[in-house]
């Protein structure tokens, strides 16, 4: 699948989503227009029923107009439903498209995204944000539907009397113009209030998260009191917001009714004057009543469209994050030792190398440079690691750290290799207890249903099963007891004989099996040799031996 160029703006994202659904959208607009044309005349017919039917005392005209209204009453919902279905279908497709775009983008530039987007945001993007952004199309549809109703209705009222039409249109416009900005002001006033709600929820989540600490060591009373304090402050803030909110809501609710009253008054004068019929007055009143809802819809749709825009902006920001490493290397068949000039660390083409250091972080950085998780002058044989395609580097050099992720699945899907091969790797990593519940046992996201030690051993097993030519492992057994660690060291050394393995650890249990020991100080290689040779140095001995001087 050729990667599409990333959309640069929210508008391009939203238009790009509409493009493949053009036919459906046109159809949706037509249905909505039809629904409006079926809806508004029903109210106009109310006037006809009153004038030609009731006042003229003509049963046949009464029946005819009522039948016409009934036909429209049946047609309108069907037309509307068809329009609704078109737009909602496109909305659902948009949700799917956004989740797919995000999935593809993470495959392309996941490590860069992870560094720049918080975990919480990454949870929101494919769910809440995708839902809001996808809604844009439905709200555009509703907006059009409302506009069509407004246009058709205004024309019909105009036909009753131009003055009524003028009052109705200007009334609706004024309502929308006043209610819209008022609502905007309300929202900005509420943003502080909303932020406090968020804070309070976070506080509650914090209490739940640390419940064991609060109950086990104390602080529950303190935290409950603090929560109550903040809750009271929020209530007070809510009281403050309640004042202006109540004005705004009452205005929004009452302004249309005011216009109904105005229309009634104007209509009554016109009717008393004989300029319009009584039926015309009844129809105008009905239109005014229905327009209450219509002018509210304009505001509602606009709010949702703004929310869609904001969500689209967040999605676009992430989709615009490019990969953090250039992948334009053309060299092939990397051979020879891996070398990191920054630290002086070299990985021989075969055998177990153990890096001993007091600062694990520096050694881990060196491994990241060697495995090209960051750009550097690291060398592979004679060439820089950068001059090879990333796919080749990843396939042949593997970095194992405690950050490695365990995805939701079964043990089998986690291991990713045929069972016999996987069993060997699991045994080498002493992870048989993980496998004791069966080959199909569930592994939950991040391995959260496993203990820390089990997670570590399972990650090691997975890395061993992949059989990379070069394995760089940072503290692979830090959460494992001594007896097990000793077994793992022996088994890994044996299983990976003939291939390059580098382990960052100060454990003598690993060093016992090391072909080469590298002593790093302050991020630079200080000495290299066999474990026994280096033990002559007392500083090394303190670091790499459990014996007490």
């Amino acid at each position, binding site marked *: 699948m050729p990667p599409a160029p990333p959309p640069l703006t929210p508008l391009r994202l939203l238009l790009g989503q509409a493009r493949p659904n053009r036919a459906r959208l046109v159809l949706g607009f037509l249905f909505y227009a039809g629904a409006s044309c079926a809806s508004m005349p029903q109210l106009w017919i109310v006037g006809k029923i009153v004038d030609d039917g*009731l006042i003229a005392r003509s049963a046949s005209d009464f029946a005819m107009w009522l039948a016409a209204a*009934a036909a429209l*009453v*049946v047609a309108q919902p069907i037309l509307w*439903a068809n329009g*609704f279905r078109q737009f909602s*279908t496109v909305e*659902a497709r948009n949700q799917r498209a956004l*989740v797919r775009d995000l*999935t593809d983008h*993470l*495959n392309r530039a*996941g*490590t860069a*995204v992870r560094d720049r987007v918080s975990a919480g945001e*990454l949870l*929101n993007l*494919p769910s809440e944000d995708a839902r809001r952004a996808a809604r844009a199309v439905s709200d555009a549809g509703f907006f059009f539907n409302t506009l069509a109703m407004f246009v058709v209705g205004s024309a019909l009222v105009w036909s009753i009397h131009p003055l009524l039409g003028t009052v109705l249109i200007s009334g609706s416009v004024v309502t929308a113009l006043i209610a819209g900005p008022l609502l905007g002001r309300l929202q900005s006033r509420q943003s502080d209030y909303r932020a406090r709600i968020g804070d309070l*929820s*976070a506080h*509650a*989540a914090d*209490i*739940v998260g*640390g419940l*064991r*600490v609060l109950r*086990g*060591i104390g*602080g529950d009373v*303190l*935290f*409950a009191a603090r929560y109550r304090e903040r809750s*009271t402050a929020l209530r007070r803030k809510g009281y403050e*917001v309640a004042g202006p909110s*109540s004005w705004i*809501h009452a205005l929004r609710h*009452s302004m249309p*009714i*005011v216009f*109904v009253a105005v229309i*009634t*008054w104007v209509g*009554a004068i016109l009717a*008393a004057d004989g300029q319009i019929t009584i039926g015309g007055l*009844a129809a105008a*009143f009905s239109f005014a009543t*229905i327009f209450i*809802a219509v002018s509210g819809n304009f505001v509602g749709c606009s709010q949702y469209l703004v929310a869609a825009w904001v969500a689209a902006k967040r999605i676009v920001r992430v989709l615009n994050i490019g990969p953090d490493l250039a992948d334009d290397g053309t060299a092939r068949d990397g051979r020879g030792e891996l070398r990191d000039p920054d630290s002086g660390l070299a990985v021989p083409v075969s055998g177990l190398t153990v890096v001993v250091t*007091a600062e694990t972080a520096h050694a881990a950085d060196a491994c990241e440079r060697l495995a090209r998780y960051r750009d550097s002058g690291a060398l592979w044989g004679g060439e820089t690691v950068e001059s090879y395609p990333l796919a080749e580097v990843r396939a042949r050099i593997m970095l194992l750290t405690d950050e490695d*992720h365990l995805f939701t699945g079964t043990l089998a899907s986690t291991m990713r290799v045929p069972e016999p091969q996987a069993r060997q790797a699991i045994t080498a990593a002493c992870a048989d207890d993980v496998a004791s519940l069966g080959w199909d046992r569930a592994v939950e996201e991040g391995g959260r249903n496993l203990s*820390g030690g*089990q997670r570590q051993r399972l990650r090691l097993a997975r890395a061993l099963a992949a059989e990379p030519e070069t394995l760089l492992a940072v503290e692979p057994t830090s959460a494992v*007891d001594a*007896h*097990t660690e000793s077994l793992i060291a022996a088994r890994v050394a044996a299983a990976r004989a003939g291939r390059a393995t580098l382990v960052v650890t100060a454990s*003598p*249990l690993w060093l016992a099996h090391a072909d080469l020991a590298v002593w790093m100080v302050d991020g630079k290689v200080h000495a290299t040799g066999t474990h026994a040779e280096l033990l002559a140095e007392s500083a090394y001995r303190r*670091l790499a031996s*459990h014996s007490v001087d």
Partner: protein
Amino acid sequence: MSTMATAPDRLPVAGPAEVRRAVGRLLAADPRRASAVLLLYFFAAAFSVSVPILLGKVVDGIGAGWSGAQVNLVCAVILACVCVQFVLSRLGRLSGYRFGERAAARLRESVVERVLALPLVQVERAGRGDLGTRTASDVNVVADMLRDNGPTVATLVIEVVVLYVATFVASPLLGLVALVTVPPLYLAARRYLRRAAPAFLEQRAAMSEAAETVSASGAGARTVESLALQKERRALGYGRGQAMMDRMLRVVKLQTDFFTFLLMINRGQLVLVTLAAGIWYFQGGLTLGTAIAAITVTVRIANPTNGVMTQLGEFQQGAAALARIEGVNLVPTEPREARPDGADLRMDGVTFGYGDGPDVLHGLSLHPAPGERLVVVGPSGAGKSTIARLLAGIDRPRTGTATLGGVPVYDIGVEELRKHVVLVTQEHYVFTASLRDNLILAAPDADDDRLVDALRRVDARWALDEGLDTVLGPEHRKLTTAEAQQIALARVVIADPDIVILDEATAGIDPASAGRVEASLAAALAGRTVIAIAHQLQAARSADRIAVVEDGRIAEAGTHDELLAAGRIYAGLWHAWQGD
């Protein structure tokens, strides 16, 4: 905890009767305000309904040849009614908001109080995600309901009721005709809600699954690269997108059917009322004005009816959230009121297993002497952490006893127990709060000197440099595992209990500093009983006594030298650890 890989037991969810009672309690807690709100809404609606009724009067008046002045007078009354309606609805809204605000505050405070009193075992079994959702997002859903949707729908419902009353006032017969559409509407709404509820839930679930899958692709981006998992992630992500779309289309189908019916019913009602009004008018039973009033009132009914119907789903979600919140109340709690006499902690012949699982401990006895430093070692899965949990009163033994000062640990109230026994595990929770607040948990009135002293004792130099006012937490100052561990240990120093149980408490600190932290901790806890559980053997050598656990039993116990001389399990572990 490797031995706890059992499926989580969900917290209970309240039934409909309990939810109704909870709603009743919320209203009853503030009865005056609640009734004031309802009265204000009622009168606001009554004044707004006067508009079409008075329109009928105008129509009849024009027929009777009213003067312009008379028409103007009635129209002025209409406008006045609208103004009164505006004032009443504003006051109603204000009281409504305040009522909702108070109810929301009461609800969230009581939930947090309840959560803080839950038995720890229940919380662990349920998983924190569930409880977290209930205390944070469920509470917000119900609060929004109380503040916004509740008052809005209450006004709409009252308006609908008043409008129906108005049709009766205009003409009782036409009122009955208008009511004809209510039963089918009720049935359709009920049917819709029954089907929509699970459909909405599935839609939410599909969304959470998509969120989880995509965020896992992000969190594990490096693993995806290093193991070339791109194809799998793509298939999975595409599947989630498809599921989201399918679920939404199901909801759309239900909504389309319901809204179509709703639209038809609303306008159908208008046709029916017009038909009845016309027939009766032709028979001379009705004035033109009354007929028009009835017809225009019916036009009005559609808007608030639609408003109520479109909010039904949200109300259902609110009820579901309230059911989950009330469910927290249903968690059984056992009274823990025993008081220990002294600080002698011991286990005698204890067997224990998790849930319905097999025994993890088999008749284990352990008697730490007061003031002793006892180190418990043994391979992973031997039951070391289980011993810690039983001694800390988190779990109750199946047989045998774990006692403190002569009474079962599990029966001692949490507040009392933690004065004597504190358990520190590998899990070091840091609260989003200042460093000071993170430390003073056990001693709220501790002064800064005492906190600084504790930090010094656990060798947390970074904390001393940054100061007690530093705000900790993932969005502020993020702590490394080692730093979080130091905070946890400093809390213990400040809490100053008789007995400290350290379950792998220094496992994440790198080897060089672990030794230093343990040495200073040992000094800080001198004179206390310390039970340290470890898979590494650093701490063992200097312990007063070492107990080796294997397969849920104490396999051997003694001092370092004694056990080495015995040449059994411990000696083997020791030699292995040294790399001999």
